[in-house]
């Protein structure tokens, strides 16, 4: 519990984390607003084919906040000080304060989980409010089960970012890959053109916890493939594998290496 408190204290005293909060709280609402505005006429006319995704699209594409959170939680440990100040790293202090590396890893994952859940709840509130503000009575009802799915999706995404950064020890690569993947070019969309295994990639499978619930088949990647539960399970399996690999590598690795 002490290690967990220390990790929360670390995160809240890091200025970069406030950027994560800002993006996490408002990016989904912004994306959902733009999407709602673009679709408003079709929705009012009752011809929209994407009514079930209104609002949720913001929660799917706006996960950058928790990606930054997960990456920063680890990359801040490995940020090397300038050579004039001795070239040290915070990880040295962290591991001389908490003797078990496994406890340290769990404490960090715990702190990221709590913040991700809270951040997603805030994002849901801003996104739902923005959607109602734009669509008024035409806004679809938001179901609890799908919103819980979105919270899980955010938390799992944060953990993937955290686990990958433990492996790379540097935030730039995971930040670039995960943010581009979640917003600009999704690797699962590219892979879908080659194989249906794309449906088992963590972002695509996880998104089924709250997206692609419309059963009308369009013969594209945007059809439902898994049930929300199976989709969540597939993403959780990815998180578990990444986390175990990260834990093993972290446990064996010399800090000086």
């Amino acid at each position, binding site marked *: 519990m002490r290690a967990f408190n220390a990790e929360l204290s670390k995160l809240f005293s890091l200025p970069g984390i406030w950027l994560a909060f800002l993006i996490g709280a408002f990016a989904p609402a912004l994306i959902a607003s733009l999407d709602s505005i673009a679709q408003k006429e079709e929705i009012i006319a009752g011809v929209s084919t994407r009514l079930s995704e209104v609002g949720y699209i913001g929660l799917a594409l706006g996960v950058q906040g928790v990606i930054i959170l997960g990456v920063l939680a680890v990359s801040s440990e490995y940020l090397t000080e300038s050579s*004039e100040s001795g070239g040290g790293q915070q990880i040295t202090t962290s591991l001389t304060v908490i003797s078990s590396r496994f406890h340290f890893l769990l404490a960090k994952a715990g702190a990221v989980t709590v913040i991700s859940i809270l951040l997603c709840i805030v994002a849901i509130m801003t996104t739902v409010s923005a959607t109602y503000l734009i669509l008024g009575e035409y806004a679809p009802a938001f179901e609890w089960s799908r919103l819980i799915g979105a919270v899980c999706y955010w938390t799992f995404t944060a953990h993937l970012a955290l686990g990958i950064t433990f492996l790379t020890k540097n935030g730039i690569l995971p930040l670039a890959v995960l943010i581009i993947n979640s917003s600009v070019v999704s690797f699962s969309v590219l892979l879908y053109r080659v194989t249906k295994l794309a449906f088992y990639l963590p972002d695509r499978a996880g998104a089924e916890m709250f997206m692609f619930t419309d059963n009308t088949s369009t013969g594209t990647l945007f059809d439902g493939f898994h049930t929300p539960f199976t989709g969540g399970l597939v993403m959780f399996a990815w998180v578990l594998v990444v986390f175990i690999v990260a834990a093993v590598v972290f446990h064996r690795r010399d800090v000086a290496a």
Partner: protein
Amino acid sequence: MLTINNLVKHRGTREILSGISFKARPGRVTGFLGPNGAGKSSTLRILLGLDRATSGSALINGKPFAELHNPLATVGAALDGFGAHRMRTGRAHLRWIARAAGLSNSRVEEVLEIVGLTNAAGKRVGQYSLGMGRRLGIAAALLGDPKILILDEPVNGLDPEGIRWIRTFLRERAESGNTVLLSSHLMGELAETVDDVVIIKHGTIVADGTLDEVIGNHSTLEEAFFALTSENTGDVV
């Protein structure tokens, strides 16, 4: 008590430490001397559980670091650099460490006062001078009021006043029964602070004894050091 027993460390094909053994005893300041790259920091890192030994053991009060329940209350360490994120304030850095050890924020203010950083505690660590960063590292090491202190090059970057402060401070710690192990390459500063001296060269201990024993027939510790590290002769113990 710190006990290093037959410690071997390989990194890739290179042998960093070739079976070194020494002790740092309570009530004494032990100086761990050696040229750059001799294996001082590697030894301290293994002692603190940061790096793994290839073989041998490094024990703190008879236990490896990983088995210490609340390490901050047993051993305080300040290694290379500040060990702090540059965007955090000095006070915030000490506060998260205090949380990890279950200590209060008032203890943070106490150690800031001890190291003379109270006025700079609200500044970001990135704006600290080398001397201020070293003081912050020592403040972190002191938070849990441990019986053992391990300091890597503690006088590096300190101004003359800071050097005098740390010398007095470490002597006081040892005289009240604590164990102090410090590494350094600054002979002059060390000679006035330490009781025991361990000299390492190319991963091998070339001298281990009290200050007088290691100086032996040489006029100063510095002369003894150069004689031992350049010729690799004159093992004391």
